[in-house]
């Protein structure tokens, strides 16, 4: 079991970090504004996965004391990262919505989404 947990350790953290890096790569190198926003939202997803993974506890169950199977509720995963991620997801959505509205307005003015054609201020 230790070994499997070790695999999961590398896999989950690795994929969370990879998601972040992919998102950052897209946000930094892509030319299309919508692609940049998409990259930012993928970056957010990666961070959220990272936070949940930190709160996970081996053999734990969800932090909800529902009736029925009380024997499983001795070990519970950490509820705090979950609460924080809840907040972070909603905030991330707010930022994405604002970003997309900015993109729409930029398109209205410049009639293009390509960042190298919009760039009037120094980037």
């Amino acid at each position, binding site marked *: 079991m230790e070994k499997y947990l070790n695999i999961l350790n590398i896999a989950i953290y690795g994929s969370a970090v990879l998601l972040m890096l992919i998102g950052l790569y897209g946000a930094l190198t892509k030319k299309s504004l919508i692609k940049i926003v998409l990259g930012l939202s993928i970056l957010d997803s990666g961070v959220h996965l990272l936070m949940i993974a930190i709160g996970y506890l081996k053999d734990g*169950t*969800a932090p909800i004391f*529902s009736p*029925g*199977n009380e024997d499983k509720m001795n070990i519970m995963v950490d509820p705090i990262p979950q609460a924080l991620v809840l907040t972070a997801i909603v905030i991330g959505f707010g930022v994405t919505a604002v970003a997309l509205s900015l993109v729409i307005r930029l398109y209205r003015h410049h009639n293009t989404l390509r960042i190298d054609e919009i760039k009037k201020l120094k980037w």
Partner: protein
Amino acid sequence: MNYIIYFSLTVMILALILSAIRFYKGPSAGDRTLALDTMTTIGVSGIVLLSYMYNRYIYLDVALVYGVLGFIGVIVIARYLEKAL
């Protein structure tokens, strides 16, 4: 009983992979959306199965919400493809 669940999960994973391949290959937007739809359906059944495995009744809520919102997402994409949006 456990083996049956393992078997179902394995088959679901294979189904997920097949629809992912269809998503990758395309060729049209409809195919990709169909792949998304199928994945949502598989996901709902997978979540129900997972909630049975963990023996937590409350996880069923997730399946319900997941199904509803996946459906709405597909309708939105279909309406966009119709050029009605």
